[in-house]
């Protein structure tokens, strides 16, 4: 695998980990999710 493929795969893995962590932490779901983009706090 060349450098580009390695870096790309690395980015994908990091993204997956971030998503997994966010899903695990979102268990106590409040009324309005912060990333729904509607701007209401």
């Amino acid at each position: 695998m060349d450098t580009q493929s390695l870096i790309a795969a690395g980015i994908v893995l990091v993204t997956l980990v971030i998503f997994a962590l966010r899903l695990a932490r979102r268990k106590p779901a409040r009324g309005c999710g912060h990333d729904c983009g509607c701007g209401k706090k």
Partner: protein
Amino acid sequence: MHALPPTPSTIALIGNPNAGKTTLFNALTGANQKVGNYSGVTVELTSGETFTPHGKKLRVLDLPGCYSLRAPSPDEQVAVDALHGHLPGYPKPDLVVCVVDASNLERHLQLALQVIELQLPTVIALNMVDMAEKSGLRLDPAKLAEELGVPVVPLQASTGKGVIELKQALRFPFPTAPAALWATGDGDLEAARRAFIRQLCELAARRPDAHQLTRSDQLDAWLLHPVFGGVAFLAIMFTVFWGIFSFAKIPMGWIEGAQGAVADWLRALLAAGDLRSLLVDGVLGGVGGVLVFLPQIVLLFLFIGLLESSGYMARAAYLMDGVMARAGLSGKAFLPLFSSYACAIPGVMATRTIGSAKERLVTIFIAPWMSCSARLPVYFLIIPLLLHESEGSWKQALVLFAIYTLGTLSAFAVARVLRRRLGPDPAAHHFMLELPPYRLPQWGYILRHVLERAWSFVAKAGTLILGLSILLWALSTYPKCDGDATAALAASAMGRIGRVIEPVVKPLGFDGRVGTAILTSFAAREVFNSSLAVLFRVDKTADKKATRNSLRERLAAARWPDGRPLFTPLSMLSLLVFYIYALQCLPTTAVVAKEAGSWPWALGQFAFMSGFAYLAALVIFQGGRLLGF
């Protein structure tokens, strides 16, 4: 030994809707809570902090507007519970600031007296004094304070005038709870209260002429006219759509140009390979495919802000009451439904102003069919494919208007059926609405809110959509295989998903790629654009010249394996109809479950809307084919 810092005292802001509580709250706490010129904007409690001139920290609670502490609607009940300290997480307030509109003392003092009867320390904030004096009202705050037995602070919250004096009145120790001077032992308390208010207003708030015809009245003679009012309403709505389409074109061109320039730069910087593909096709294509619609989002919220702050929304609710009655709803449901055009979540929460529990449930159920702003990137991608702008941007605006109308009318039809099935209310609820005076738009305020929404949109694109675009790229790249771009896509995970999904979506006029994109958009509707950008990317080997093909051009050129165009007018209509009806927002389902008080209801809504979307798209596509389109 250090003394423990004392817990900050809590003050609560209460008052009639439109009295200016939230404006005062923003002025006190420096917060930026939403203010609109219609009742029902604040439906839940918000809290902030402020400091007195002596440096003492105070916790401030902004309560929903309340006409009375007796027999309240669900949003008013929040205010009542807060005053009694029955709200979990919020202590009983140590002091209550009762915000009254100086031009409306006869009506607003009712609540103030009820608060004083609760024996909590009270301060009266006499708001909008400037407007009152301009209309010829002669106020005597000192006399009011003397008769009521509580401090009265005149202010104009929107300019900040009098806020310092209010903070000084909040000095510790708080003024002791007053005795209700009108509550003599015998007799009807309500009647005594009313008599007291009448006398008080004679003394301290003399009104020159009860019914001057104001400029607002003159405007209303037209805008509330049974025929002309309705026409004006439709004309205003159509102008908003047309405005969003036409004014957005130039900024959109800039964003697309910038996107192309960055893509060129990356292609020059990096040799062909995975990283370049990830950055150009995945990140730039995916996020860019959503960000390019920022101008439309800004314009949408700008128009909504203008309509809300001018006071027209209350008139719209009045005009729509007759139409909504045929759907089994009342004019009160109009405002929550209108909010849902921006985002269903605050719209669902705003249904707390609806007194009837059954009507509230129905309104919550249909709210997602008011096309929310997340669908705009999808609509704005497909509509120009359907109708090129050379045919006239007003035609495109018409299609958008038709989309919104279809969603709205279907929602009303379902509401009517549902309302009937739920049965009549135990107690009758009647339409009543306060029509606030028209106001010139408060630009500073509106622009701040538009920026806030725009930032939310960009932040969402930069986080959730970025992440999903990267994952989508991964799905369309791995597992790898040798061969040209088409073969590689077919061998990847996304290709496999596409093959599985294709039989399901083919009857709707979509191929596996579009079907996969639809599937991914259940995470966030905007991701549909990102998915298409990744799935329909330009051949890697053809990068010799700068291929600045926009997503739209690539989609227009897309073909089925047998060479037929993929995006025909019929299949695009079917796609649009699918997006009108599909409920693809997990946060909305969560809020619905909370507000309706039941998860089965929310899940039922999801199942119904998904099934309906599929069927509607099916009917459109197959029906159209039968008719020979």
